[in-house]
């Protein structure tokens, strides 16, 4: 039976007249990676900062375990340093006047641990993220990926009850981003730690999360497991934000990968297929991106396998199965 660790009840944050976060309610279960996903300005970071205690909610209540950590009506507010949370910032926030060791040891020193214990724990956590050999380096001498590992070590070293990640991969290059995604996910599963993760990247969200909450203009659009959100979006916003969609005649919407493209050779189109012509083919390495114009005149971009030996001007038949498609009102 899953246990709820963190609960937000109708939490709002106002900046002047704008509701940056508008009555958001969430429940995060122990051991889960819970992701706040949305475009910039959707309120995801503000929500995370309210969980961290860096912003004060104007409405609603946040409970953590059995404790109320923020309640706007009762004017309860536990400051960030009393919440025992770990956080990795977008900029990593590695203190430049300290070495890697000092950065990671800082939370333990605040807790008054004995020196030997501090050294042991720092060693262990640096080994865990694979940067043991950098312990005595000054923090500014590190690369982006290394700084992120330091930030992660610093957030994990005091075994917080909840780890907050604010767009932690956005400053890394593409290759490193993929690698860190896997590493963080593996680490999280090994430690069994609960994570609240903020990102604007749907691939990151889909691949890392146990549950995703999609936010738009401060409001919660949909909460669910990744495949549910991808296959059964509850709103056009979620549908479009989570990936490519193609609009077929009759207001049928479908993911491009669910469309089968075959050469048109005399078959009469069924109700779940349409005709088109390949205008141009963009070679993107592992596949083609085909620009296809339907007979109805609508253009669309569909991935095609390299094996097909396609060429521009080919007449094609696009078919799909109804259980992968959704019909949306105009």
């Amino acid at each position, binding site marked *: 039976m899953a246990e709820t660790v963190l609960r937000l009840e109708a939490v709002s944050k106002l900046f002047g007249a704008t509701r940056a976060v508008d009555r958001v309610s969430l429940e995060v279960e122990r051991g889960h990676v819970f992701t706040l996903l949305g475009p910039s300005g959707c309120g995801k970071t503000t929500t995370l900062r309210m969980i*961290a*205690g*860096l912003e004060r909610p104007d409405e609603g209540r946040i409970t*953590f*375990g*059995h*404790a*109320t*950590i923020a309640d706007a009506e009762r*004017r*309860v*507010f*536990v*400051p*960030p*340093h*009393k*919440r*025992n*949370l*770990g*956080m990795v*910032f*977008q*900029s990593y*926030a590695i*203190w*430049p*006047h300290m070495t890697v060791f000092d950065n990671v040891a*800082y*939370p333990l020193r*605040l*807790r008054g641990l004995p020196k030997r214990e501090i050294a042991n724990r720092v060693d262990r956590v640096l080994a865990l993220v694979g940067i043991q050999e950098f312990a005595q380096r000054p923090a500014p001498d590190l690369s982006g990926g290394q700084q992120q590992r330091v*930030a992660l070590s*610093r*957030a994990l070293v*005091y075994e917080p*009850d909840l780890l*907050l990640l604010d767009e932690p991969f956005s400053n890394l290059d593409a290759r490193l981003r993929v690698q860190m995604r896997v590493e963080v996910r593996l680490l999280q599963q090994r430690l069994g730690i609960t994570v609240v993760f903020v990102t604007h990247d749907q691939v990151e969200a889909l691949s890392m999360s146990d549950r995703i909450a999609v936010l738009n203009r401060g409001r919660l659009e949909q909460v669910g497991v990744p495949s549910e959100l991808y296959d059964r979006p509850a709103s056009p916003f979620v549908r479009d934000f989570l990936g490519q969609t193609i609009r077929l005649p009759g207001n049928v919407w479908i993911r491009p990968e669910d469309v089968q493209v075959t050469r048109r050779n005399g078959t009469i189109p069924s109700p779940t297929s349409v005709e088109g012509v390949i205008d141009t083919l963009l070679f993107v390495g592992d596949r083609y991106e085909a620009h296809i114009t339907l007979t109805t005149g609508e253009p669309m971009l569909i991935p095609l396998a390299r094996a097909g030996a396609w060429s521009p001007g080919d007449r094609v038949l696009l078919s799909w199965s109804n259980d992968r498609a959704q019909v949306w009102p105009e």
Partner: protein
Amino acid sequence: MARINAYSLAAERWVLPRVEVQTVLGTLVLLLVGSAVLFPIALIGYQSFTVPIAPGQTVLGLAGWQAVLTEASLRIAVSNTVLLTLTRQVIALPLAVLMAWTIARTDLPGRNWFEFAFWLSFFLPPLTVTLSWILLLDPHYGLINQVLKLLGVGPFNIFSFWGIVWTHLVARNVSAMVMLLTPGFRNMNSSYEEASRISGASAPGTILRIFVPMMLPAILTVQLLVIMRALESFEVEQILGPPANIQVMSTWIYATFLQRLPRIDAASALAVLMIAAMLVLVALRNRAVGSRRYTTVTGKFQAQRLALGMWKWPVFAFFLLVTLLVMAVPFVFATLGTLMKLFGFFSNDMWTLAHWQEALSDRDLLRALQNTVMLAVGTAVAVVVLNSFIAYLIVRTRFVGRHVLDFLTWLPFTVPGILLSFGLLTLFLTPLLRFMYGSIVALIVAGVIAGLPLAAQILKANLMQFGSELEEASWLTGASWLQTYRRIVLPLLTPTLVVVALIALIGAASNISQVALLSNAANRPLSMLQLDYMAQGRFELASVVACLILFMTTAMAVLARLFGYRGGLGG
């Protein structure tokens, strides 16, 4: 869950604690700064309506305002001020823009050294620069004028309108602009200029059509700062003006205090007009710059330097000449002046150490030296402590009064030094604060107020630069606000705090106008002593003092540079 439970009781007791600390601290700082900045200005306004009828006796009236509008000497002082300022700027602006551009965007040899020279020359006391140029351009004995006489031209009299213009140009005017403009110019992405060149524009065409318009906000801002300083300039005119019968607003105000019946009402009315003019200038600049943002660079780029080609060495020679004028002349001639038997008289047998011996045994000078050290150290400490709090409150907290505080720290920049001096004098002559008149503390108060705008600006920029996440990360790992301030904020700010302290030291050691009316024989610092010596015609002693100040301020400026201060807007 045990650990989380432990916090549930604590949670109920934590009711808005951080805001209260900030509000209390913020309100205290706000009251302190507010009274220190606003009282002198308000007093000046009030005094413009108090007409003196006999020594120590005044009545309320409009005679002061009448005098400002009708009195010939005042009208001439105002028009002299405006004319001198405009003349200087017409020459300095194109020169400074071109020189800053050359340093920032071309492959000029030694450009970093030239930039450093301009930077250093900004910190040279104007009075010292004036003194060294008198040695060269005195109409009768000046070295250059003696050469000119042999050639059958001249003399170029430094005690004249053009002499004043020249002295300002080689003192701070051009170097301040170059120093402030260069960092911004350097940060502009060169692809804007390259796009213009590829479209077919020549190099000068690109400067005029792309570079200058894009840099206009920065140029206008620097221009505004320099004009505001030009309108208040005091000591150069005080020395070079009288022989040519040239009076400016600041010297007119100073002069009235030397009379038996000081025209405090007229001086105050003039002061109100000066502050109003400053505010109008600021408003004009804001309007011109509007919502246009500074051209800054967000991504990574490599600024491609323009090759000067065949112009390389002619331009280098020009820069070398300018550097000699702004740097070498003050250092060489201020030193020479102290070693000459009779100041300004060049002859075969003119060297002596007698002035140093006389000066160093002069009790006035020793007391002034002691005063300057106390003043400089006191000012530096007070500026650092006060401004680190002010900058933190403005940048990092949601303290309700932070915008007012921001405005108040910037306001003294619009108050000319002589007026600040005047306002504080009025304040210290009120019965309650009378005990402070003639004390070092009175001068420190003036130094702290005058130092507010720059110190707060530098610290604010530094705080913004390292972002709030560094502190937030500390809170989240379990550090309280105070622990974070001590272990994260202060260590990060330390290099900048040292720089702010050094700049405050330099200001306190060399500024004249802001302490001119507050000092008497008891608390007179070196800078005022130098002015007094010059007024008495004791130029040899004045140049000894000038040398002392010059070497003190130069040493501190070099130290500040070593701690990373580079000048520039918001840097």
